[in-house]
């Protein structure tokens, strides 16, 4: 256990130090969510006046939840880019030779992704509150939202790490990014599920991310949260992608 913690701590410290001291690594994680928040909550606020749109906390809070979960997911995807870059430079191979417990490498990257998401999430919260976002949920609800965002972040990290460790090239970037992007946008992004129609409604109903984003919106508005469904889906996804990530690590080990 000590060896695992040492490896995880070392990898996490290196990754966090890297993106904190080099703005070019952190900037995209910060700029993109802020930009999406401005574009969606600002440009589309009138969509909140569509007949039948009855989200109690207003359109800014409605979009904030989506952007927060999106930022958490992309924090994980960007960490996948770093893993792929480490493999391309040969650093990851040397690290695997040196690490007494290689699962610690995966855990270290996940901790770094969490730190990245924490910085971005805090900034996003500050900007949203400064621009007049209404929060009707209580402290426990907000804590639940943070937990939900963290679960999304770890799940996306494990997905991206699994791809990065299988392909071991930064050219795998689109393979990490696009499925996440599509999954996120096939959920009720702009209006609640009840206002969707046609094919997108059918897809959104079976998209697991829909439960997470709707649960997050219930939390921020202080509504009734179907906690078992929301956190159940989140934990199931986490479990599935943990297997995917660990198998990716084993593939990278086997590749030498």
């Amino acid at each position, binding site marked *: 256990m000590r060896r695992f913690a040492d490896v995880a701590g070392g990898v996490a410290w290196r990754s966090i130090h890297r993106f904190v001291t080099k703005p070019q690594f952190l900037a995209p994680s910060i700029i993109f969510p802020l930009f999406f928040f401005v*574009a969606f909550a600002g440009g*589309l606020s*009138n969509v909140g*006046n569509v007949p039948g749109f009855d989200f109690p906390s207003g359109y800014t809070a409605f979009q904030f939840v989506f952007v927060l979960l999106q930022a958490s997911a992309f924090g994980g995807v960007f960490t996948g880019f770093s893993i792929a870059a480490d493999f391309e430079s040969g650093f990851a191979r040397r690290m695997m030779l040196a690490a007494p417990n290689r699962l610690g490498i995966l855990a270290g990257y996940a901790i770094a992704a969490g730190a990245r998401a924490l910085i971005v999430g805090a900034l996003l919260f500050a900007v949203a509150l400064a621009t007049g976002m209404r929060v009707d949920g209580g402290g426990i609800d907000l804590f639940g939202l943070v937990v939900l965002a963290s679960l999304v972040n770890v799940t996306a990290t494990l997905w991206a790490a699994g791809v990065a460790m299988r392909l071991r090239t930064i050219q795998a970037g689109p393979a990490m990014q696009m499925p996440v992007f599509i999954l996120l946008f096939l959920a009720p992004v*702009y209006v609640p599920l009840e206002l969707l129609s046609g094919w997108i409604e059918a897809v959104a109903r079976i998209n697991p991310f829909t439960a997470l984003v709707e649960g997050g919106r219930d939390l921020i508005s202080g509504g009734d949260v179907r906690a078992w469904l929301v956190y159940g889906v989140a934990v199931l996804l986490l479990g599935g992608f943990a297997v995917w990530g660990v198998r990716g690590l084993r593939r990278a080990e086997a590749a030498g």
Partner: protein
Amino acid sequence: MSLLAQGAEMARRSVLQTLRQPAMVIPPIGFPLILMAVNAGGLESATRLPGFPTDDYLNFVIAFPFIQGSLFAAINAGSSLARDVETGFLKRLALTPMQRAAMLLGNLAGVMTVALLSSCIYLGVGFAAGLHFEAGAGGVLVLLALALLIALAFASLGALIGLRTGSGEAVQGIFPLLFVLVFLSSSALPRELIERDWFRTIATINPVSYLFEGLRSLVIFGWDGEALALGFGVALAIAVLGVLGAASALRTRLVRT
């Protein structure tokens, strides 16, 4: 060899180089269609807002893939010229009697071919999904002409950056900036329906709004002279600035070599 023949040779190289790389063809066609489909479904209920100009969001959002495809044209044009700088191809070309205009316009031919191909695909998918085109068949041709002019405008901007920096990475770096310009415009709602004053002001200042409005005016309103004049005017202005800037950057680049 005449300017035309030189340009044709460069164009042939550029077209082949582009079509042989799936990464330069598939994303400009696929990504805009995915976003169009997602937005057409997700924002359909926005048509219930009082004053929304059409009852089918597809008619409104059809302009989106043309503009997003043009961003890819910018990146691809810039990247391929930057690669020519990085690999020394431009240096070797400078030793030949090739004219600069032929080099530049020929180099843009590849991305313009993809722009034409993708424009036809966007329209085909749009019609298959039930697009109603108010301006009729003539309007489709005018829309294609405007779409190609917009693609040329953005491609020339990409070429300018590619030649000025000589770095593919720098060209990729402008993509987020262009993306911001697209989202901070009237891309998702008509300007008069944007509720927040500050956003409406930005969208009004942002020239990309007029490109969107020119394209979709043909679909939603038929023949709207003002929207078309603004759309063509803005696209032409960007194209002229881009081509002149790229020509100047090419001259500087060749002097340096």
